[in-house]
Structures are given as structure tokens and as C-alpha cells.
């Protein structure tokens, strides 16, 4: 039965108004509420329900339902499920006479369903995104063909509006997820070292790239006692958020354990026990911890990690094989430390995660490989840590040919510095001349003493007093003067004169307008320069001898040995003379 013209115009206007309103509503919940209310009004139904299709679970779920709790139906089941599955409208004039009608809902709620009009909500691409179901026309009659037409017109607009709102909601969810991932990435980045540390005796270059926003690779530099440095590289199974969380946990545990000052082996054994208790069965982490000492020695512990490479200037490249299972596999795993023979200047230690050798790209998906890594290290090793790091990164990037890496990649290159950079004690030239000392100003004080070490204090006191009373030195110089004269007198008495009290040391004091000169002569044979320890050697930092010459050179303007080493010439600018202007 067709309605009169007035009703038709009313309904058409209602549909257009509703369509406009739906088109401007971006919030899905409010949109669905508006649709249900509009349908109820336009077809003059008692109740309306709106179902949305959950494609993943193959379900139909009520999002808005007047007078009912949430209803969940499998696609194809029941009247609404059939409409969703077939995309065809169903109009049931007498519900209880139709076998497709499920009476359970009426039984449980006490509601009596008489008539049902159920239409699909189909989007632009013909996909059913939901179902509208109107119940019980208010006038007691079944829904008619006109109702179907009006509702179909409304459903067309509603489906498009729902599709748009769903896209917007998904986009918002994606945006929120991206924001959260970015936040996680920022947090994880803050856990990674901003730059390699500066540490005496070593130069460190490093590079780290995650294949996802968050990574499962771990790199850390942790200073420890006595100027030692712990370098850690780890790789969590998998990647993404879960790997990043595990990496953060491992980092926190490791840093806390290192505070205890245990050995690397004990530390990694404890870390394994802690991680094993927390990790699921399919999660684990490989790790290598290298402890670098200032003297060039290094020990390492590996928990199933890629064997680090040691490149030596002698031309060899060795792999440091793994010493234990990955972390988190067995709670009673124990780990042993391996010692790396002392690294000499220019030698390199290379730590990395498997993302580096395993880098590959279509179409052949050939892995870049350990051989390429070794070759690249060897080729650029002479240029130092940073050059090796840059070269490996460039080569791996080229191997990826612009493809996205499938794994996180981390590289740490540690270079043993040349000795002069280890202990930068510049050594001014120490001259030991065969000749006699040069013509010099007249002697103002001279005296000889027997080579008796017990007289040393008295001699030094006298010489220092001579200098002080003439105003050539100040009280502030006392500490250094005592050190210098002590040094030279000990050499003269014990080494030059071999402690023989019959032999003498003679001290003479002179000055010109600019400088004072003290000469200390013994009666011995002198000495060669090779007898003077080379303070610039790295090892000399922990030697107990060999600093005297260097200390004297720090204070004196001139320290020269004449007569083959048996006469020491000590000179310094006079405290009472103006410094020449530059």
C-alpha cells in the first residue's frame, strides 16, 4: 500500500535530513545511535537493533539495541545473520510463523516479536558492514514494501556513513598506536647510549638500527672501577615491542648486577637466572659482555652471541667463540670468561648482532655474510674504529639495496689506541751529551759531598736555601725543587758513584739575567739514554719506576746531561726576572 503524497514527502524529507546528519557525524557510537533512532522513526517500528559485522571473528554483534543486551550471532545464523551473509533483505510479517525466527530471546526477555524487517548495510564496494533490524510496526500491521523502500534508502546512506566512521576510528586507533610506538621508541632510544664513551686507551665507534619502531638489540657502555669499561651487545629473540620490553628488562638487571662489582662471568650467570625466571619458554636473549682494561687487556663472556671478531695489525682475524647458552634458556646455566690476549695499538675488537651478517634483500635474498664483514673490517682496519664502522654500515646498506631490514642491526668497533694516546705523557727530549757543559755564568756557590745518601736531605736543604735567599725561586717552588734535587742526587750517588762514599758529588750554582743553573756532577762513568725508562709507554702507567725524569722536565726549563751523563744541568727561569714578552 502506497502512502499518500503528504506522508511520502514527509518521509523523503526525513530520509534526506537523516542522511545529511549521518554524513556529518564522525563519531561511530553517536552515528549508530542516530541511525537506530532514525530507522525507528521512519518505519514506525517499536524497536530497532543495529548489528556490525566482525569479519575477523565471523560474527554479527549488536552495537546499538533498543531494549536488549548485546547479541552476538555467527554470520549466517538467525535472521540478522542470514541477511549479513547473503546481503538480502528479509521481511517477516508473522515472526512466530517463520521457522527462521529464534524464540529464545523473547522467552528470556518477555518481549513478543510480531513482525521483523531486516536489511543489510552495504558499503560502496558491496561489502556488508552491518544489519538493521526493525521489530513490530507500531500500527500492528506487518512491515510493507514501502517500509522496505524507505529503509533501503536510509540504509544506503547509513552504510556509507558507518564505513567512513569505521575508517576514521581505525585511523585514529592506528594514529594512537603509532604515537604509543613512537613514545616507546623514544624511551628505548633514551636507554641506548647517545654516543660511544671516551675512555683512556680505547676508541669506540658504534651503530644501531632497529627494523621496527622499537628494537630488540641492546648496546651499552658502562664504566667500572679502575678506569675499566664494560661494553655490552645483546640481541633479543624476535623484535618489536615485546623484544624492546625484554631488552629494557635485561638492561635494568645487568646495570644493577654490575653495581655489585662482580666479575663478568658471575654477572652474566646471575643475569641469566633473573631473566630465565621472567621469560616465556620461547623467549631468549644472546649477549656478549667485554670488559676493557686500560692496559689493553680484555676479557669477555658470551651467552650464545655472535662470536666477536679480533683483528690484529699482524694481519690475523680471530673469532671469539661463544662460551654459554643464550640467556633465559636454562636457569642453572653458568658462564665462563674468555681472555683476549692483550690488544696492541691499532688492534680492533668488533662486536655485532646477527642482523649485520644476515642482512639480505630480494630478489636473491643472499645474506651479506660473515665473510664480507671480516673482509670489510680487514680492508678498513688501518683507518681505525670509526672508519671500520662507517665502512660496514655502508656495505650493509648497499647489500640491502633499499629494502627494509628484517632484523635489528648493531655494530660496535673498539680500537686499541696507540701508546702515546694511552698515556699522553709528552717526553721532551732528554739530551745526554758526551761534551763538557757550555760556557756558563760564573759560579756563585759550589760544594762537594761524599756519596752518602744520609747526607741527601742536608745537601738539598742547602741548595734550596741558596736559591731562595737569592730570590731566584719562590716558596711555591720548594716541592718541585726537592723532587728534582732528590732525583738527581740519588742518581749521582747511587748510580753514578755506585754508592761509594769515597767518590764525591759536586753541586754548583750559577745564574744569568734570565735563569738559574744548578749542575750536579758525580765521578762515575755516566749512562746511556736507554737506561732511562720510556714514560710514554702504556705499561708505564702501572710501573713503579721511571717517572723521575718526566717530573723534572715538567718543572725545569732545561734538563741536560753532559760528560756522558755524569753531570746534570738543571735550569729554570729566575723567579725575579721578567718573563720575555711573546
Amino acid at each position: 500500500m502506497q502512502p499518500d503524497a503528504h506522508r511520502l514527502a514527509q518521509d523523503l524529507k526525513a530520509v534526506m535530513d537523516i542522511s545529511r546528519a549521518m554524513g556529518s557525524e564522525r563519531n561511530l557510537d553517536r552515528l549508530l545511535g542516530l541511525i537506530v533512532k532514525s530507522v525507528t522513526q521512519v518505519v514506525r517500528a517499536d524497536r530497532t537493533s543495529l548489528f556490525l559485522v566482525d569479519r575477523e571473528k565471523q560474527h554479527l554483534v549488536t552495537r546499538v539495541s533498543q531494549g536488549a543486551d548485546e547479541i552476538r550471532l555467527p554470520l549466517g545464523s538467525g535472521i540478522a545473520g542470514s541477511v549479513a551473509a547473503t546481503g538480502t533483505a528479509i521481511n517477516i510479517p508473522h515472526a512466530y510463523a517463520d521457522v527462521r525466527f529464534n524464540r529464545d530471546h523473547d522467552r528470556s526477555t518477555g518481549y513478543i516479536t510480531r513482525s521483523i524487517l531486516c536489511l543489510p548495510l552495504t558499503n560502496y564496494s558491496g561489502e556488508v558492514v552491518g544489519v538493521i533490524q526493525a521489530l513490530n510496526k507500531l500500527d500492528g500491521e506487518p512491515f510493507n514494501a514501502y517500509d522496505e523502500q524507505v529503509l533501503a534508502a536510509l540504509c544506503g546512506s547509513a552504510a556509507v556513513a558507518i564505513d567512513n566512521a569505521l575508517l576514521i576510528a581505525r585511523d585514529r586507533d592506528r594514529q594512537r598506536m603509532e604515537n604509543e610506538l613512537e613514545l616507546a621508541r623514544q624511551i628505548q632510544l633514551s636507554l641506548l647510549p647517545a654516543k660511544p664513551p671516551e675512555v683512556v686507551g680505547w676508541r669506540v665507534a658504534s651503530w644501531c638500527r632497529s627494523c621496527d619502531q622499537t628494537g630488540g638489540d641492546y648496546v651499552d657502555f658502562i664504566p667500572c672501577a679502575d678506569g675499566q669499561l664494560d661494553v655490552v651487545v645483546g640481541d633479543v629473540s624476535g623484535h618489536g615491542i615485546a623484544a624492546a620490553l625484554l631488552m629494557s628488562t635485561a638492561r635494568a638487571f645487568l646495570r644493577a648486577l654490575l653495581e655489585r662489582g662482580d666479575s663478568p662471568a658471575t654477572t652474566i650467570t646471575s643475569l641469566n637466572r633473573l631473566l630465565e625466571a621472567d621469560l616465556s619458554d620461547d623467549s631468549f636473549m644472546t649477549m656478549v659482555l667485554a670488559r676493557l682494561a686500560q692496559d689493553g687487556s680484555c676479557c669477555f663472556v658470551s651467552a650464545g652471541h655472535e662470536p666477536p671478531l679480533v683483528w690484529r695489525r699482524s694481519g690475523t682475524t680471530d673469532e671469539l667463540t661463544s662460551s654459554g647458552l643464550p640467556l633465559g634458556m636454562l636457569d642453572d646455566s653458568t658462564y665462563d670468561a674468555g681472555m683476549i690476549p692483550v690488544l696492541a695499538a691499532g688492534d680492533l675488537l668488533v662486536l655485532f648482532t646477527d642482523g649485520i651478517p644476515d642482512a639480505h634483500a630480494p630478489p636473491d635474498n643472499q645474506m651479506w655474510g660473515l665473510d664480507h664483514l671480516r673482509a670489510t673490517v680487514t680492508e678498513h682496519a688501518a683507518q681505525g674504529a670509526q672508519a671500520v664502522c662507517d665502512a660496514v654500515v655502508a656495505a650493509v646498506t648497499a647489500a640491502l639495496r633499499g629494502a627494509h631490514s628484517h632484523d635489528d642491526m648493531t655494530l660496535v668497533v673498539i680500537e686499541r689506541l696507540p701508546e702515546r694516546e694511552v698515556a699522553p705523557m709528552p717526553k721532551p727530549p732528554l739530551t745526554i751529551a758526551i761534551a763538557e757543559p757550555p760556557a756558563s755564568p760564573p759560579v756563585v756557590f759550589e760544594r762537594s759531598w761524599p756519596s752518602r745518601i744520609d747526607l741527601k736531605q742536608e745537601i738539598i736543604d742547602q741548595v734550596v736555601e741558596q736559591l731562595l735567599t737569592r730570590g731566584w725561586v719562590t716558596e711555591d717552588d720548594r716541592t718541585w725543587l726537592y723532587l728534582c734535587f732528590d732525583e738527581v742526587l740519588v742518581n749521582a750517588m747511587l748510580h753514578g758513584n755506585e754508592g761509594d762514599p769515597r767518590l764525591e758529588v759536586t753541586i754548583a750554582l750559577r745564574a744569568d739575567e734570565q735563569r738559574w743553573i744548578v749542575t750536579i756532577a758525580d765521578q762515575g762513568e755516566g749512562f746511556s739514554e736507554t737506561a732511562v725508562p720510556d714514560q710514554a709507554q702504556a705499561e708505564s702507567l702501572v710501573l713503579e719506576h721511571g717517572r723521575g725524569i718526566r717530573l723534572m722536565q715538567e718543572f725545569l726549563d732545561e734538563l741536560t746531561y753532559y760528560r756522558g751523563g755524569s753531570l746534570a744541568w738543571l735550569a729554570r727561569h729566575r723567579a725575579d726576572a721578567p718573563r720575555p714578552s711573546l
Partner: protein
Amino acid sequence: MSCDFLMVQRYDKIVLAEVKKERLLDPASITSLGEALIAECDRTAKISLVIDVTEVGYLSSAMIGKLVAVHKAAKVSKGRVAIVGLKPALLQMFKVTQLDKLFQFAADAQSVILEYKRKPL
């Protein structure tokens, strides 16, 4: 070997060693002081040794070398060494020879002892 110018006070593993001598130049003093400090390191595992040299005005390179030996002995016992009260000119000697990297330095013993109490080895 006893050292008659060294006063030692022990607080568990923290050992305060005050050097009561102005000149650390003669071999006998250097040897006795060095051996007394090394004996403290040998006696106490994980020692926190605080050497107070407030009264020291002069030292020789031999004494500096002996302090390196003390540092080694402390390291063997997994300990640490601080030198406190060092006069600026003497501190300069440690810096010239790069030994400032080997030791911890502080103006007075109190601050180091408090730090060591807070962070035991």
C-alpha cells in the same frame, strides 16, 4: 715492617691511613710507608684505603712509584685507594705522570669515608 709516622684507623673494610711526615724523600721512609700500606691491602679483602697526606709537603718519584705498588696491592684484594689532602703541587705531579687516572683524590678524608660507607664494595 712498621712505619712510625703512619697512623692507621680501621672501620671494617675502610682503612684511614694518615701519613704524619712532611718529607717522603729518604728511601727508608718510602720503603716503610709503602710496605705498611701494602700490608693493609693484603690484610683486608675489598679494602677501601684512604691515604691522608695532608701533612706531606715533599715526595719523590720513588714515593709516587711506591703508591702505584699500593694501588696494585689494593686491586689484587679487589679494593680501591683514595689519596686525600694532597697539596696542589703534589697533585700536579700525579697529573703529569697520568696517575690521576689511577687514584681517587679528595680534599679531605671525611668526604671519601662517607662515600665509601654509602657505596661499600
